[in-house]
């Protein structure tokens, strides 16, 4: 058992985050107690960020107190672990368009109090103008124009020198092209928009045809 990035516990091929709300599970994950603190197991098959960490993500810019804009927060599975890491002094602005997913997310938000749920279309940042400047933008929207959405939101909300985490699902961008070509094409777009690519990680075997990109503005 060892700590990675100061905040995540690693035990063999399992990773854990310290539970912000002890004894409360978000998606039926396993809870363990270590030295008097409770940790939640982070399932890499359900969270692309966890898969990226296990596949060797070197830089991890999410710290205690970080302010994050999360596009496509969905039911809050990944977000709950990010919320564990940033703690009560950090905040996630969670953008989600689907009313069904929002209902699930609200349950998580009510416990945690460091996520601000916003029901809006990530293509239209003007629908949520009150979001503050953030340290990191996390994008997982599975849309054909995912990269454009990410760039647009970064220009609007990301602080200079902040990071972008982009989970590319090649199947939702182009089903016919090979995943490798899709990644290449999307990364080219990022570079053109002035991002510096820090790392690029394929998420197999945890997620099929997905790539996780960490870029710096």
């Amino acid at each position: 058992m060892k700590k990675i990035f100061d905040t995540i516990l690693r035990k063999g091929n399992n990773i854990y985050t310290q539970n912000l709300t002890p004894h409360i599970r978000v998606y039926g994950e396993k809870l363990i107690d270590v030295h008097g603190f409770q940790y939640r197991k982070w399932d890499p098959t359900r969270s692309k960020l966890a898969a990226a960490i296990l596949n060797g993500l070197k830089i991890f810019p999410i710290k205690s107190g970080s302010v994050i804009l999360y596009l496509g927060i969905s039911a809050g599975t990944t977000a709950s672990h990010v919320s564990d890491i940033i703690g009560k002094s950090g905040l996630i602005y969670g953008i989600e368009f689907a009313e069904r997913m929002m209902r699930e997310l609200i349950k998580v938000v009510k416990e945690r109090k460091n996520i601000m749920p916003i029901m809006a279309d990530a293509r239209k940042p003007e629908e949520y103008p009150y979001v503050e400047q953030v340290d990191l933008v996390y994008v997982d929207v599975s849309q054909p124009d995912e990269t454009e959405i990410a760039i647009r939101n970064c220009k609007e909300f990301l602080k200079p020198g902040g990071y972008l985490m982009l989970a590319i699902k090649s199947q939702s961008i182009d089903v016919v092209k090979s995943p490798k070509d899709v990644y290449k094409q999307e990364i080219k777009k990022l570079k053109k928009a002035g991002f510096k690519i820090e790392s690029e990680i394929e998420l197999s075997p945890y997620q099929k045809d997905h790539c996780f990109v960490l870029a710096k503005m």
Partner: protein
Amino acid sequence: MSKKQVAHICKSTIGFFAFDSKGRLIYYELFSPNAENAFKKLTGNFSQSFLKSLSGYEIKQDKIALKFMRENFRDYAISLGFAKTNSDLNRFLSELGILLTNANASISITKDKLIIQASNTLDELTKQINVFSEHLTEWFGLHYPELKADNEKYAKIVSEYGARENIPKFRKSTGIKFDKCDEEIVKKYAYFICQAIAMRKQIEDYIKNSMKEICPNISSLVDPLLGARLLSKAGSLQNLAKLSSSTIQILGAEKALFRHLRNKKHIKSPKYGLIFMSKYIQNSPKHIRGKIARLVSSKLMMAARIDFYSNRFEPKLKEELERAMRKMRK
């Protein structure tokens, strides 16, 4: 007269703010730090007192103010005394987010969502009734294997008469004898299936009626149940109204379509998906079914758009479709 100075104003989650063009804070009006109050102010207009205090300026509500606000949001929130610590501020924002979302979410639910749920339930119920009936036939078949009827009748007979001796026209059977308790439980199970079948009928009627009300044009072209399936596949009436006719044509045949897209040379594209269930296609000779599917889907596309954007009934659609059908069949 000298030119008025510009005040850039914006709404933020913690109050109304005004900046000069260099980003210096001119004036602000904080909300009281409880979420409900902030929710009302944020979704309303700028307060009169705020605008009055800026009467000496030329007021502009623009992105510049938002940018200044964003950059120093946390500094302002804490130095101006809105919140004591970051965690207090976060707790407030989280509560505010829930209020904003709840207000949005109830608007976004429309009546087509009810039809979609009913349609999904109907499909699942039909599947389950088949499985249940199969089990009943197996079970009662041990007692009276000679009884032959379709699922609905079978369940009705068993639930009505119970043991084989009570069934009219019974002569003799190779099955085993049922005790009183065996008979009772099978009878009850059959009754349960009859109930499920009645439920299915009710849901069907419900869908038909609601479809006629919400999507009069789609229901006039195809069976309302098929219309409901199309809605369910598209996700909502709004989504269906945005689809092109070619997409509607193959809605439900995604697997075949992508098989074709991956391997264009060897695998042909599907001609129809869900709309195959339409009587127009099923009653047509095989060689023109593709053409008919194109025709039906193009009319469905128009119907969906009329239903979503104006909801007035357009009898012309059906006439046009039938005229074109006759032409094609000649």
